[in-house]
């Protein structure tokens, strides 16, 4: 991390009228990441103003929110103990893989339990965040759908606006002239709407596979799943236990990556078998080298002929979809399960070192490389549940801000150590298609990095 420090903290006031909130920290978003950021900042003694454009907590987990991508029958793909916040576990009476409505109930209870709502300004959109003299921040907000803007000045800003709400749509030849119906996966709210339809799902990530299995279960007239490459399809259970719990046991044994890969190849060969029998391409990489796809039902539905795997889409005709292997399909609905893009329209891109492809480049995936008092929470794609990682991220952010705001020389003295930490790689394996998985992290490796950061900050106190 290399921070270019501004002038002394608390410099001359800006000429524009902005209400100064003193040492208060601004948190953007009241989803899972925003809530845990608010809770941990308050716990570390900060005042917090949290803004959310919606009128309730939960972010994407609240399916009533217009940007929520969850569909009616979605369940978690990481198991309960790997998913909850480390200091507020999910109820042990819940199933291994809770339903999305339970996740929302959990977040609401978290907000109530720690009395977080009094820090949150609902129905308030952040339109502009800019650094001002003295390392402080001016945050301009507007009530959702309104016109009046208000500007407040803060000591620091934590961005927690999520990365699963702005659909990424691929550019495919002929798509503009295609007359059939196309939607992004995030718009498929109720899988029963797929009943009786001829559906082509483009993209075999976790969402694509879930939707294909759902379409099959809902008796779609036809369901094609278009994949570009071969993947590993990891079942939700092996040996009768959630697969991430088995993986955690293997990680605890600290086996080398190669041994772990060998072990999981053996396990998957036993419990899933050769994917080519189901018409899927052979994985072109080893386990751990791409984001894990956890799905037990896809293979089952393939075996029942209710999902038909097809090749990558080459181009769209007027009413047809042509695949790279020359096959032509005539679906009446095309679902793009092609992922999401992170969006930070309210920030100057260079503050997060955002490249031409829209990807920020952040030390430890959370600090601004330019400003010491700007951080991003939850911009990770881990091989486990995200909430535990964001919890420790925001603890680290809170402790960092405490040092950076109260003792700038100590913060500056930490720089070389932090820079060395920031240069580390956060994934165990060399990732295939690393451009797409730029924020993929191995959760244990990343947690060890955060542990190192927390230990450094502890000593700086």
């Amino acid at each position, binding site marked *: 991390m290399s921070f270019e420090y501004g002038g002394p903290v608390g410099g001359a006031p800006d000429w524009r009228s902005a209400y100064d909130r003193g040492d208060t920290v601004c948190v953007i978003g009241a989803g899972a990441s925003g809530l845990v950021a608010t809770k941990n900042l308050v*716990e570390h003694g900060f005042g917090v103003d949290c803004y959310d454009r919606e009128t309730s907590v939960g972010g994407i987990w609240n399916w009533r929110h217009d940007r929520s991508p969850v569909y009616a029958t979605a369940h978690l793909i990481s*198991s*309960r*103990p*790997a998913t909850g916040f*480390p*200091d*507020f*576990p999910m*109820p*042990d*009476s819940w199933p291994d893989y809770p339903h999305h409505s339970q996740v929302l109930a959990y977040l609401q*209870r978290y907000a*109530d*339990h*720690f*009395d977080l709502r009094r820090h949150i300004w609902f129905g308030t959109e952040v339109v502009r965040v800019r650094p001002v003299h003295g390392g402080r921040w001016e945050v301009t907000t507007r009530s959702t759908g309104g016109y009046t803007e208000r500007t407040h000045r803060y000591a620091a800003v934590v961005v927690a606006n999520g990365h699963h709400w702005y659909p990424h749509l691929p550019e495919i030849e002929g798509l503009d002239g295609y007359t059939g119906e196309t939607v992004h996966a995030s718009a498929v709210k109720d899988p029963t709407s797929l009943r009786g339809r001829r559906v082509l799902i483009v993209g075999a990530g976790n969402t694509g596979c879930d939707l294909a299995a759902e379409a099959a279960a809902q008796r779609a007239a036809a369901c094609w799943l278009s994949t570009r490459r071969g993947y590993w399809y990891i079942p939700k259970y092996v040996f009768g236990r959630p697969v*991430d*719990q*088995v993986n*955690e*046991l293997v*990680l*605890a044994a600290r086996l080398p990556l190669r041994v772990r890969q060998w072990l999981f190849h053996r396990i998957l060969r036993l419990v899933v078998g050769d994917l080519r029998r189901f018409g899927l391409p052979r994985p072109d990489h080893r386990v751990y080298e791409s984001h894990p796809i956890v799905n037990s039902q896809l293979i089952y539905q393939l075996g029942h002929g209710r999902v038909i795997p097809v090749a990558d889409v080459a181009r769209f005709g007027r009413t047809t979809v042509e695949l790279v292997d020359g096959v032509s399909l005539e679906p009446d609905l095309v679902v793009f399960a092609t992922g999401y893009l992170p969006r930070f329209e309210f920030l100057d891109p260079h503050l997060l070192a955002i490249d031409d492809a829209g990807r920020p480049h952040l030390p430890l995936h959370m600090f601004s490389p330019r400003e010491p008092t700007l951080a991003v929470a939850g911009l990770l794609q881990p091989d*486990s549940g995200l909430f535990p990682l964001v919890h*420790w991220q925001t603890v680290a952010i809170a402790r960092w801000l405490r040092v950076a705001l109260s003792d700038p020389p100590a913060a500056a003295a930490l720089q070389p150590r932090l820079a060395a930490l920031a240069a580390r790689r956060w994934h165990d394996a060399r990732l295939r298609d690393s451009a797409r998985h730029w924020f993929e992290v191995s959760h*244990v490796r990343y*947690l*060890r990095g*955060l*542990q190192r950061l*927390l*230990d450094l900050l*502890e000593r700086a106190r």
Partner: protein
Amino acid sequence: MSRPPGPGRTRLVRHREVAFPVPAVRREVLTAVPADAEGRPPLLFVPGFGAGAWVFAEHWLDHAAGRGFPAYAVSLRGHGGSGRHPRTTLRAYVHDVVQTACGLPRQAVLVGHGAGALVVAMALSRYPARAAVLAAPVFGGPATALRALWRHPVGTLPALVGGPLRLRRGQLFGRELPVAEARAYQRRMGRAAPLAQWQLLAHRAPERPVGDPPVLVLGSPDDAVVSGRALGRVARRYGGAPLLFPGMGHALMLDRGWREPLDAVLDWLEKVTG
């Protein structure tokens, strides 16, 4: 007595919590909730080994509720009306406390008694309590076992080979409690899991509490289970001196003068959480 001096650091990688989640059992929670809590935090009482939530339901829950605190008491698994599970360890007891605390409407104050205080101390690293009270804390170790053996060999020896631990009337209560009443309480006592009893002899020190809660340690100089030295050691660990209630036995919440320590706890809570 505020900020505990972080014994040990906070561990971020917790393989065991994910790989081997503690199995769920039915948990008995007794409650006494005032009509108007006026922003006072809920209290969660955790009984020691052998005792169920009922020990707090006798006097403390109602009195705490009478002073405006929503009061809850949980029976650890295998105790009172809670379900049991084979291979129960200290970790499972900690799980029971954290789960119950997370189920309360607001951030709770954890109050542990006896070995329940050790369970609370361990739970503090897994749940950011509003505050914590360790009453007559039994943090274990060989000295605790030797003291119990010395005071009551017949009741202690079976525990060393996995049997139940029995305490004499004189170990639990002061002289002022009528004998019949004391006997009735003794008859209601159950037992802790054998593994957990052994772990009391040798276990890792509790990790540092999360969220820097204020911690109060209290006990009696006449406690036949917890020596004055052991009490002082626990209090020092949390950066203070113990609050003392002379003349009382180990079972502070059942003994004759039960009102006095509880009032001291509630006064302290009004000060630190007010």
